């Protein structure tokens, strides 16, 4: 009884219920939800937002908010792509990941400097850096859609398995990049759960002064956090272009809102201090189902932003209301 009570005070069961309800609705409307290829498609479209959401969740847990990670991911992958193309790079794909992660880390360090070291408000800083990075991408590099180096293209073509829908004849491929997602999730899980750094991120989000007095190096942890999130965004950029097989600089811009919505929807407390990876993944799944399946249930794509907006508002309202109850 107590266990059940405790379980339903968490957010995850409710999102799971929402997902099940939504999937049954779509199944009834279209008959296409529980088909192998649709599920693979869902997993496939979850990879990029889920990678972003892991970092975004850490930032929100720490009590901040980051709107620059898509800009970081885009610029990091774009420079990497251009550079590797210019030297006719033909080595292993890991180099592109490392390079993009390093560039992302550098850009994240700029966020970390302003937010962690100078203690400036996260939203205003990341609005500024997001504008800076997109401006550099379009201004200095005159970015436009371009090819990807052969290594990345080959990496994008490597497929784990293919699911074919017997009814419609459509088939979907599960890309290898799913392993990168799994790896990143494990790393973040380990970091948050078993390291002092991770506990520090929760502590800062709970109460920054208390964390400082408890002996956490608040500035250092924040600086690390934004570097880490930047590196993660760089990796995500390469995942994105390898799955698309071309480098479109605008492909990830604007995704930040959906990711933030997913994280908050997943039960991460909006004022910081609490949040789980499972909840975040469920949030991403719900957002992905919503955006992939609005057409399946007969809603025009013109209204999709109304859905994103409503989901952000409802999700944050529920989260804020629960925080209030706990006090």
């Amino acid at each position, binding site marked *: 009884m107590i266990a059940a009570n405790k379980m339903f005070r968490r957010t995850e069961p409710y999102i799971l219920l929402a997902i099940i309800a939504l999937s049954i609705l779509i199944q009834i409307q279209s008959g296409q939800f529980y088909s192998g290829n649709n599920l693979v498609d869902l997993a496939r479209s979850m990879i990029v937002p889920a990678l972003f959401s892991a970092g975004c969740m850490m930032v929100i847990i720490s009590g901040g908010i980051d709107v620059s990670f898509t800009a970081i991911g885009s610029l990091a992958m774009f420079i990497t792509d251009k550079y590797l193309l210019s030297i006719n790079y033909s080595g292993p794909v890991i180099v592109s990941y490392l390079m993009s992660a390093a560039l992302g880390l550098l850009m994240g360090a700029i966020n970390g400097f302003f937010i962690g070291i100078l203690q400036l408000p996260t939203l205003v800083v990341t609005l500024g850096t997001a504008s800076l990075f997109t401006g550099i991408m379009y*201004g200095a590099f005159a970015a436009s859609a371009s090819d990807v180096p052969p290594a990345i293209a080959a990496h994008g073509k490597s497929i784990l398995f293919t699911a074919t829908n017997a009814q419609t004849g459509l088939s979907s491929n599960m890309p290898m990049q799913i392993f990168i997602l799994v790896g990143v999730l494990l790393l973040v899980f380990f970091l948050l759960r078993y390291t002092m750094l991770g506990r520090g991120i929760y502590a800062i989000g709970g109460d920054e002064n208390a964390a400082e007095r408890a002996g956490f190096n608040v500035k250092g942890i924040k600086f690390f956090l934004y570097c880490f999130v930047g590196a993660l965004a760089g990796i995500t950029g390469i995942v994105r272009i390898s799955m698309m097989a071309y480098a479109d600089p605008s492909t990830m811009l604007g995704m930040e809102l959906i990711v933030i919505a997913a994280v908050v929807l997943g039960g991460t407390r909006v004022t910081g201090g609490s949040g789980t990876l499972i909840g975040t993944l469920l949030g991403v799944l719900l957002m992905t189902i919503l955006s992939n399946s609005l057409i399946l249930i007969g809603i025009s794509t013109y209204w999709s*932003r109304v859905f994103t907006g409503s989901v952000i*508002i409802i999700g*944050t309202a529920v989260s804020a209301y629960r925080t209030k109850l706990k006090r």
Partner: protein
Amino acid sequence: MKTSVLAGSSLENRSNIRRLIIILLFVTVLMTIVRPSQFPTISNFNSMMRQFPEYGIMAIGISLTMITGGIDLGVVGTANLSAILAAKFLISLMKSGVSAEAIAPYIVLAILMSITTGLVCGAFAGFLIARLNIPPILATLGTQQLFTGIAIGITNGRPQSGLPLLYSSIGNYQFFNLIPVSFVIFLLVALGAGFLLSRTRLGFQMYMLGTNSRASWYAGLNNSSIIVRTYMMSGFLSSLAGLIMMARANSAKAEYGTPYTLQCVLIAVLGGIDPNGGAGTITGVAIAILILQFLSSGLNMFNSISNFYRDVIWGGVLLLVLMINKFNVWNGKVRGNP
């Protein structure tokens, strides 16, 4: 920076405004030197006066919310939604055959409709923040999506054009062929907001709330009511900006002016509004608007500079100003306890 309503504040505000005026003079002199035939001309100043009111008014709206310790990221969405509703109303009247002479009262009606929309949008954001306790950043990120989404939904993302000629001729009217109507509206808004903040009870309460919401609550202030009224003012100002944009473009569009959000936050911070709330003046914001417009018009005079560099400059300036303000706090004379 947290002591603006206390005795030391006027000193700090004055030094901030002095610094802003120096920057403004510097930009003016610089642009005059590098583009002597283009920058210091009447036609340039006239075109600048037509450009900045729309985002200037929204920047004042954002500043008001930032003074209370919040932020309104939904201003552009509110502006476009309210303009689109007015535009749809006027266009449908034109289609149903209302003559050009008889449309005047309907234009007044459309303007009232648009302002009401702005007030409702603002009240909604205020409700989310004050009653549901959603942090202002997330609440208004949500309302921005929601309002833009509704605007896209009801227009299928298409621009609404075919407005009555009378509307744009009023909106683009210039007194003495020099001073645009929109500039006069901006002046009235700036004076009104300045008066509100420095001379009224609500203005004082907004600073109190922004300095320390718990203390203001214990002092017996109705925090919820102050927040809702502040966001309604921001919504009202956004709808004015929407009406001006509609007149200038002679149409309304769901995604018009999207970069204005960042620009308005930048102006507010540059103008000395403390992002944590409780400090800043409209005079500072007004000078910041001029600085940004001078810079932006000046940059336009260089064909070789891509428009995208503007993003770099805005972002860079924002970070720089944040940093300068920060160090100024550390070295300054008046230190409040945050």
